[in-house]
């Protein structure tokens, strides 16, 4: 088995990296792949809370790297979703506890055990980022339709290209009504500036807040639009790259889209 390491990053904090990592990892596991999600935000761990696995942590990634435990001991199995594992971050160390070389060494044994390894990258471009991208094969850049988020994502994309990684873009927290009113940048505006391949659009969804607080996986909720969007992103990553990207803009319903088509023709 030769696993693929995918780093989820954004530069700016609070745009939904951790949620995206948890959701895409869970969705990928539901498609029958062996998946591990790794929290690289050492000192400020969150991924365990979002996944509802907080109280089962015994060992963490620093313990694995330092040889205090085996990968098998540190990887927490999710009881609701088969094939989904979490390697949590340490809350008591800081980011200098790991080096990029440590991660490259660790990645060799991870690739042998799992199909997909998702790394939740911390905000910023310092040591934490260096560690997370050290062994990455692919990168997902999460960006919200805000100028500050785009600016940071642009910087991150430049750094990823410098490491010969071609990133893909997730535009998170789109509010179609605001885009229609012209109060929010559309995903086209974001893609125009960042000019990388779009892999998914995620709408703003109140259920995300609930799921994050309760630790209930979003992707298990059938009626969550964001959860479905993450399912589709996982499908695109997992061998269906041409799955059409749903247009989340204003046009609701058949009649309005028909009207738009007629108007365009005139």
């Amino acid at each position: 088995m030769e696993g693929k390491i995918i780093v989820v990053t954004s530069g700016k904090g609070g745009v939904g990296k951790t949620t995206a990592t948890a959701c895409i990892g869970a969705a990928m596991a539901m498609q029958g792949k062996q998946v591990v999600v790794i929290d690289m935000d050492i000192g400020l761990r969150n991924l365990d809370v979002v996944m509802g696995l907080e109280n089962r942590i015994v060992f963490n990634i620093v313990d694995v790297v330092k040889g205090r435990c085996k990968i098998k001991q540190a990887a927490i199995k999710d009881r609701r979703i088969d094939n989904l594992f979490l390697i949590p971050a340490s809350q008591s160390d800081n980011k200098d506890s790991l080096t990029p070389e440590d991660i490259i060494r660790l990645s060799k044994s991870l690739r042998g055990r799992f199909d997909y390894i998702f790394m939740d990258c911390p905000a910023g471009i310092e040591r934490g980022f260096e560690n997370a991208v050290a062994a990455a094969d692919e990168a997902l850049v999460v960006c919200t339709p805000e100028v500050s988020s785009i600016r940071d994502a642009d910087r991150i994309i430049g750094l990823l290209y410098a490491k010969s990684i071609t990133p893909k873009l997730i535009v998170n927290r789109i509010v179609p009504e605001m885009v229609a009113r012209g109060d929010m940048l559309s995903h086209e505006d974001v893609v125009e500036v960042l000019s990388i391949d779009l892999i998914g659009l995620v709408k703003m969804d109140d259920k995300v807040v609930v799921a994050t607080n309760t630790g209930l996986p979003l992707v298990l909720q059938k009626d969550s639009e964001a959860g479905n969007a993450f399912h589709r992103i996982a499908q695109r990553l997992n061998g269906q790259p041409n799955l059409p990207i749903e247009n989340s803009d204003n046009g609701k319903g058949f009649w309005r889209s028909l009207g738009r088509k007629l108007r365009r023709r005139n």
Partner: protein
Amino acid sequence: MNEHRQAVRLKGVGDGLWVTIDPSQSVDLLKRDLTAIFKRLNEMAVNSKVTLDTETNESHTNLLDELGLFLKDRFRVATVSAPPNRRSRSREEERIRKRDVDRSWQHHRSHVLMLAGRVRSGQKVTARKHLTIMGDVNPGAEIVAGGDILVMGSLKGKAAAGYPDDEEKIILALDFQPEQLQIGGHVVTGIPSFKEGRAQFAHIVNNTILVDDYLKNNPFGRLPWPEVL
């Protein structure tokens, strides 16, 4: 000598004057014609470098000396000399020279740094002279050049032309929405893009940076002929 050929002809070369004389004419006639031509030049002849060319392979040292003294006395030219010995080149040498001149552009070292692609946030491009970007400059990116800046795309970042103190330089972009502009030490921020989809450029007029439509105010009109940069 036929009537059509003048005894004295003059042309400007590089840093001086090239005078072609017909050595078969009398010295007086040559002096008269030289006087007529040099009078017309007025002050321009003063301190100029004059080359006297007899267009023959024979040497006319006496004639050249006499005319040289005459020109120095009468019109205060700086130096008078015979043409450099260029006719000694063999045909083969001439052929090689011609070939080298034709190919010289292949070895020309450009003063323009030309890049294709997108300059992203946090990246900085610095050019000693002119800078051409075939692509976009994103917000947060920085481009600095000692000469002109041409962006064949949208300019949304920071641009500094004529760095550090050349105020003659311009910044041109097909889509002009910069965060900040600097030309030779002058700084301006918050430039509204008044014409979307039109190429615009910034230049200095009366110590202020002005933005103009490129097609209406051709900034390169100041150059009379195409120059190699």
